[in-house]
């Protein structure tokens, strides 16, 4: 009868806290089955190797060692890094300026414009890529048509020089509006007193944007940045679809993700593919933490 010694209210609250497990259990079950288990399995697979003779055998870190000196993989990682360093600042810079412009209350038509810029987010990446590939295309693309009408040489947007920029344009088109909406929502959540105080102190719209709004946006910006790291390093849909129009420019290792895909499903080397995707995940985590660290340090 030791239960009797516990005051009823505390016993009730302990029992109630136990109910918390029932609330989180369904999520955690799916989480373990769909995230933890595949991750662990990939880690396991990456330590084996399939030989022509003798079947599958344990190979330790051989797959990783091979990956680190795999030039096709490294080229792909460099390419998406370059993509990240150029495309993400442009996209987030645009999203931030749009959000600030919308929040300034100094515009006509701001509701319509906000929705219009956001709309591409509702378009699947595949369809965005198909659409833009037709727009870029030399046969009936309006860009080529316009250039020819003006008697100018049409830029070959699918050539090896311009391809990465063309992909970047598609991704920027898709996600600027989404980031803008996230930042705009964060701006709306800033308590009005902060502005009023700054306005009383005689700060203009620019000063308020720079000194009050942007610092308050830091967490939302950081989040957008982290998602952009993940998106850039996982680039797949857009180049995969453009590959059909420019197979000589985009090969099967154009991005690390395309490389793992072709490793797993065309070369049927799942062990090496698992090692590569594990490494890619590691790169993403490292870059994400570096970004967080850099942002956190700036604050002090």
């Amino acid at each position: 009868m030791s239960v009797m010694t516990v005051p009823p209210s505390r016993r009730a609250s302990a029992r109630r806290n136990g109910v918390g497990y029932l609330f989180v259990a369904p999520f955690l079950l799916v989480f373990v089955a769909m995230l933890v288990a595949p991750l662990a399995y990939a880690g396991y697979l990456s330590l084996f190797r399939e030989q022509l003779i003798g079947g599958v055998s344990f190979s330790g870190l051989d797959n990783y060692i091979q990956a680190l000196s795999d030039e096709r993989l490294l080229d792909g990682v460099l390419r998406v890094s370059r993509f990240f360093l150029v495309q993400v600042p442009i996209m987030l810079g645009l999203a931030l300026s749009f959000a600030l412009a919308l929040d300034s209350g100094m515009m006509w038509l701001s509701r319509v414009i906000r929705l219009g810029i956001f709309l591409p987010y509702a378009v699947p990446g595949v369809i965005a890529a198909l659409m833009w590939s037709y727009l870029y295309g030399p046969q009936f693309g309006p860009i080529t048509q316009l250039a020819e009408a003006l008697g100018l040489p049409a830029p070959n947007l699918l050539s090896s020089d311009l391809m990465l920029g063309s992909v970047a344009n598609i991704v920027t088109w898709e996600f600027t509006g989404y980031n803008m909406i996230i930042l705009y929502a964060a701006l709306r959540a800033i308590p009005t007193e902060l502005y009023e105080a700054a306005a009383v102190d005689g700060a203009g719209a620019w000063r308020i944007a720079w000194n009050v709004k942007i610092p308050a946006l830091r967490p939302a910006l950081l989040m957008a940045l982290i998602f952009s790291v993940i998106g850039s390093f996982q680039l797949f849909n857009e180049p995969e679809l453009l590959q059909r129009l420019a197979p000589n420019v985009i090969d099967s290792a154009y991005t690390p993700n395309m490389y793992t895909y072709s490793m797993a499903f065309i070369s049927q080397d799942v062990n090496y593919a698992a090692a590569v995707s594990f490494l890619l995940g590691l790169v993403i985590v490292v870059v994400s933490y570096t970004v967080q660290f850099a942002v956190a340090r700036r604050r002090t």
Partner: protein
Amino acid sequence: MTVTATAPPRAATGAAHSAAAGRRRSPLLTLGMLAAFVYFLLPLFWLVVAATKSTGALFSSFGLWFGDDFALPANVRNVFTADGGVYVDWLLNTAMYALVSAGGAALLAALGGYGFAKFAFRGNRLLFGAVLGAIMVPSTALVIPTYLIFSNVGLVNTPWAVILPSLANPFGLYLMRVYVEGAVPDSILEAARIDGAGEFRIFRQVVLRLLAPGFVTVLLFTLVATWNNYFLPLIMLNNPSLYPVTVGLANWAARASVGGGGTGDVIPLVVTGSLLSIIPLIAAFLMLQRYWQNGLTAGGVKQ
């Protein structure tokens, strides 16, 4: 990451702010933003124009304006009848995968977010930390091992192969937890408990109602993610009648770009099929505006 909802978010006060209390409006700013507006809508305008053209007109007329013929009805008819009407399957598959995944993911996230926010069970922080860390795990690193596991248990090439992986949404759980902290006061829960309501009845009848904007937000954004998914179904499915619209259209596009000649007739199918498939999502976003915009603002109330 605490919620500092001391002052009501301005979104709640609505239009009062956007009028900005008589602040000067700037034509230059509006003009600049209109230019951006045009850039973001021009491709969609092109899509609408292109869907009204036959293959011949597509090649012979200017892309950003309508041609002489109006082939939209014929194009739509062709989209729905090509390959034995498989496009209808794709649309239904997409809708089914997206609705089941998004509904399931939002419900799991709401339950879990509430559990993590309001119950101090042992291991709460540790488990939540593990889920947070998983936000950064790239989904593509998971797709290949998930495929191998699913092919061992016979789930590959079934709808479950696309739905199950989409149910685990760590970011959705995080948003829900933040949202619960801001929108569900302890006092209401205590009052319901004193009235003798069971924990799950409280969740169903009190918490879910308070969570509605956050719930719709997570629902809608998971809906978009699954509706737009390409990589996962591309790998998991190889039966065309199970494809979602993204994989199906990409297949048609591949056929269109194989070479010139007769395959050119596939291009209007791709264009018109693309246009038809984006209408439902755009409509959903426009109709549910109030919900998701408020939901995002609430999610943004964090430091």
